[in-house]
């Protein structure tokens, strides 16, 4: 049997976090859920995760800083950045730092799953 892929979710909004956790769980992924930047970074660097979904605005350490550190240590890890539509500068920064994709909130969960699967080579 194929190993379940482990996805890191870093999102401080409990509703969005829970929604993504639910959807990914339904799609057969294992989820490691975090709600602040420090915890997310620790999980990303120390655990055997297959991809990360990271919100930009988070307490303690923002998503851009988390992405920067991940890229320095795990350059191949697929990363999707979540941001709000009005913060275009975050999108530019995230793409410059090597985010593989970004999604603006509110987003359709199906789109997120599609992006994730495409990054993991499952589409």
């Amino acid at each position: 049997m194929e190993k379940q892929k482990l996805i890191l979710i870093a999102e401080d909004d409990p509703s969005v976090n829970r929604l993504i956790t639910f959807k990914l769980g339904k799609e057969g992924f294992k989820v490691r859920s975090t709600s602040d930047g420090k915890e997310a970074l620790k999980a990303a660097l120390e655990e055997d995760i297959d991809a990360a979904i990271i919100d930009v605005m988070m307490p303690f350490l923002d998503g851009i800083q988390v992405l920067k550190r991940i890229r320095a240590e795990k350059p191949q890890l697929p990363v999707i950045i979540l941001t709000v539509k009005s913060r275009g500068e975050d999108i530019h920064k995230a793409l410059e730092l090597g985010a593989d994709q970004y999604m603006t909130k509110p987003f359709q969960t199906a789109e997120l799953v599609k992006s994730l699967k495409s990054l993991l080579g499952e589409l």
Partner: protein
Amino acid sequence: MIMDPYLYILVQIIFVIAGLTILFLLAIVLLRLFHSLGEKRYRQMTEDWEDVFFGYLQGELTLEEAAAVFKKANSYPWMWRFLAPYIRSLDGDDFDQAKLLCRQAGLIDYYKKRLHHRSVTQKALAARTLGSLRCRESTSDLLAMLHSKNPIFILAAAQGLAASGDTSAFAQTTRTLLNHTFFTFEGAAEILSRFGVESCKAITAALEAKTGSGTAENPVEKSLLDHLHGKDSIEPYVYYSLYIDLLGNFRYREALPALGKLARFADQETMVHILKAFLRIGEMPPGFDIKPFLKHDYWVVRSFAAQVWKYSRDQEALPLLENLLSDPYWWVRYHAARALSEAGQNGKTLLKRKTTESAGAAADISRYILELNEVN
């Protein structure tokens, strides 16, 4: 001691003002208190609701069990406030399940009744909510609201209809939005785009019928075709422009052949929108001849034609692009030079030659683009 009557009146006024101020401040404090108590209660409820909602979606709770919890709270505005972000993000079976929960809990009936409420705000909110829940049984009520004279109702009804994705209301919504001056063209396009990609199919069918390569089959397509035939007070080019913009926004490639045919006999405004749609879609119909558009009388058409040339890279059009380097309009010269700079070595050589050949507009724009390319 007898007080001066004027002083007495003054003291009375001060007392009244002070009393009113205290009452006003007290009212603010009480309102804030009630609000924060309400928010606290809402937060407590949503903690429970989240478990119930996801438990229901995951099949751990039955529809009846989950609906009973929401019903017990007896607050549909709070229920909607909680569910709305999920409803907007969910799709497929998950959306259907969430909608079923709303129906079972009585939320849909509640907002259907609110569509007939006296308050403008409540009516508008109900229209948007039913739209977000894709309640097509409310389409006739929303259409009635769309034909009201109040702009708030018209906007809410249009947003509700568009969110519902019920394309049977697409033609009427378009006509209403274009008929009212308080909606800008871009605003109307933004609202209509929420009908989704299904509307592009109807638009394409109407364009194909108009260009003789197909027929308008269903009532929606026939209504759109009537718009293009100019059967109401709005000029057809306005409809063309809006519909073509929507096709471009959705990058609807299936419409390319119809757009290509239409471009041959379209008026200049429509032509501009067709070329803009090619840019959005990122290609032109196969075999589309860009040359007549590079020679068009209207400078905006020439400017867009120069921009879309890259999709055909038609070498026979290079002399026309060269001519456009001396066009009276700066933007035409700019886009022609940009196209030539992307046309391989021949184009670049031509631009370099222009910089030395003369001191006119063609030389200036060629120099500018070559310098810009060096910087980048």
